[in-house]
């Protein structure tokens, strides 16, 4: 009697552990926020959408570097000294400049360290920014639209007949 209880308990606990492991494997454990609240309510909709400023005007390193780059505080300030200087968010920006600090933006789109993602190659291949970044021009607050998983990368690489060699991305 006792023996069967023991065996039964063993089977149940092994089963539970196995189920848990399977769930962990299957669940998307990427729990980073898709649309984090930024320290400054910067609106891409106003800049890129309503005013039609080109992406590369601010993210100017994208065509020549792995990173796209975010504009320096001085770049923001040089326009906002004249444009809408009284808005509360612009005042926050000027406050950062006065303190001599960079704005601690929260990163939205990120790939792990073992992935080499060069912006300049994708720009050179005339891949539209929106394929990865979504319709930025309509977003008040930036949110991640793509899964940024390897399968998603490979789908696009296959579609565009880009290399799918391991060494292309995992240097």
């Amino acid at each position, binding site marked *: 009697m006792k023996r069967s209880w023991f065996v039964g308990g063993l089977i149940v606990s092994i089963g539970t552990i196995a189920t848990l492991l399977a769930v962990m494997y299957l669940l998307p454990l990427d*729990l980073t926020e898709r649309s984090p609240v930024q320290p400054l309510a910067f609106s891409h909709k106003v800049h890129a959408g309503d005013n039609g400023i080109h992406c590369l005007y601010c993210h100017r390193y994208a065509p020549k570097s*792995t990173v796209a780059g975010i504009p*320096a505080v*001085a770049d923001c300030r040089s326009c906002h000294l004249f444009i809408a200087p009284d808005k509360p968010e612009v005042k926050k920006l000027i406050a950062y400049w006065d303190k001599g600090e*960079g*704005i*601690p933006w929260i990163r939205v789109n990120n790939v792990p360290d073992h992935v080499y993602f060069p912006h300049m190659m994708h720009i050179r291949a005339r891949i539209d920014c929106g394929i990865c970044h979504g319709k930025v021009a309509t977003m008040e607050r930036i949110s991640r639209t793509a899964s940024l998983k390897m399968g998603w990368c490979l789908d696009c690489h296959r579609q565009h007949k880009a290399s799918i060699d391991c060494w292309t991305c995992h240097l």
Partner: protein
Amino acid sequence: MKRRTFLQLGGMTVASAFLAGCQGQNEKLIPYLIPPDEGVTPGKATYYASSCSGCPAGCGILVRVSEGRAKKIEGNPRHPVNRGRLCARGQAALQELYHPDRIQQPLRRSGPRGSGKFQKISWSEALDLLSDTLKELQQEPNTGSLALLTPQLTGSLATLTGVFMRSFGSTHHLAYELLAPDWLRLANRYSFGQPDLPFYDLAETRYLLSFGADFVENHLSPVQYGNAFGRMRQGRDTVRGHFTYIGGRMSLTGASADRWMPAKPGSEGVLALGLARLILAGSLHDKAALSNSGIRPEELLARLRNYDLQRVADATGLAKNSIVEVAREFATTRPSLAMAGESVAFQSNGLEAVRAIQLLNTLVGNLNRPGGVYPASADPSTGALLRKESSFSELLALIASMRAGKIKAALIKGNPVHTVPPVTGFQEALDTVPFIVSFATVLDDTALQAELILPDHAALESWGDVVPLAGSRTMVYGTMQPVVTPLYDTRQFADVLLATASRLGGPLAAALPEESFVEYLKFSQAQRFSSEKEEDLELLWVELLSGGGHFAPDQAPEKHYRWASSAVIADPPTPAFAGEANKFPLHLQVYPSTAFHDGRGAVLPWLQQLPDPMSTVVWGSWIEINPKTASSLGISQGDLVEVTSPRSSLRLPAVVYPGIRPDMVAIPLGQGHHGGGRYAKDRGVNPLTLLSLLNGKEQLAAWNATRVRVTRISKKGDLVSAGHPEGSYRGDLIGI
């Protein structure tokens, strides 16, 4: 609390901790406040070609710089000395730049000497203080009261310091280094009538005989020879060069040999002459080469009749058959090559021994031949590329002047308080100098004694030029350029000299009118290429900087070695040692550590953490003792032992090492700093304090001729080793 509630709560805590661990935090993206300068692209690295100043070998380096920060140093593939390779010391130069204990602005001593109490002052105050002191010295009738102490200098810095001291009116410029090859220059002058250092064509040789030359670790140009050794072994399809190592301690170089011959310390010269006799007796010598050198084989054979096999075997403690075998192989395998190293030269009969080894090369025709030995690239004839090296006797002369109170001020670049053996009396003599200026980057042992510290730039922030030491047959001229903006309020040593010259005025300011060292460098380039037009000079300068220097591989070198007709084969005298054999039974060998060279690397944590290739010890000093000796003294691995020489004693952990003769012990150089920042301070011991000097050895000091006694103190030696506790070798393969 009920048991069930407890389990539930516990489970929930674990689960939430688990989930919190998975929750990836969104990273921060912090932009520049002001956009970076033109030429800096975030995410894209820039590479600068420069030269390494970690040791006199002067390898070419490429520094990767991202967003204005130096990130990685590698060898420059186009540089003929190191061909893209770089040693650990070169890689670690990065940490000199980011060292947390760097001196960030000029300091003036506020406490007693050696107390380490300094107050911060501004550059203008510091330069005023320096130039006022020097002005006072200039007023005196004897202007020779200023001394300048530096490491070996090459290139424009050598000329600049020379002009500075000459115009000041002082002859006391000492460029002494403990490991400088002045012994080799001296031997060459006797044997070949010229002091040029040799360039060994290791890559092309088929039989290498190294008499204590640890070319993989430290000898002359280690990166160049390490690479050439690889090509000698594996670079040719059909030949794998043979390598025999002679020396009482098996170094990393010795461990790479096919045959290890642990000759008694001080007997290497007798062995070389014994080999020469066997070669001559068997008529295995190169007849053409001998007649070229003006040596008659019969006469030489008669001259060497004392070096019969029995005597050589007794003197060296080696087996007769292996001596005969090596003599035959060395003479019949062409091309072959014999090298002499520091552990031979630092014996009391070192000079004669090194010359006997040079005779071996002459006998079998290895001079000026592929796979043999050539004079290294001659320093180019233009005065702009001088080399400044001082010998041991010049060091002794300066110490005598200091003792006599003739030196009133000393400008010191480098760390001689640590690297000059105390037996010379240097440290006490320096105490009598009233005004000491140090150009240290961290508060090292010498800076602690200084009145004024004028912090130098790190190497990666400095301009300069380098003529590599003995690394190539052809002319090599390397440039150094700053790869980052200086991190702190420091100034380059040469710039300080120029600023002082202009403040002092008079002949000094007239001789050194340049405002900065980079101008001075450009000026010496203009002298080198005086035939070129003005606008071409700017172009040449840019080419020099972008390529890391000027290398002339096609330029045929003109110098050759030729046995001097006046050269007499001197008998190596019976080796003398400090300390009586009954009181001090063991021979002490001090050897340059792979990581620290003469101790300058000890301030860098990467090098402290670099395991010694043989013992795998990190972060400390140790003494190597043969297992037989250790067991007779009751010492086991890691025990704390006391080493006593006739001069002093030290305590350090023991490493039981089968690769050393039972009558020898060895301690690596480089540790035992009293200053040197948080990583070097009070770590390990400095074996130089143990060394004695022998009388009559003022020309060449015999640093490996001290005997010691070893006694066990306790079990707690605090030995830290990174690998297998018994080292990286297989002890059962080493027999002695």
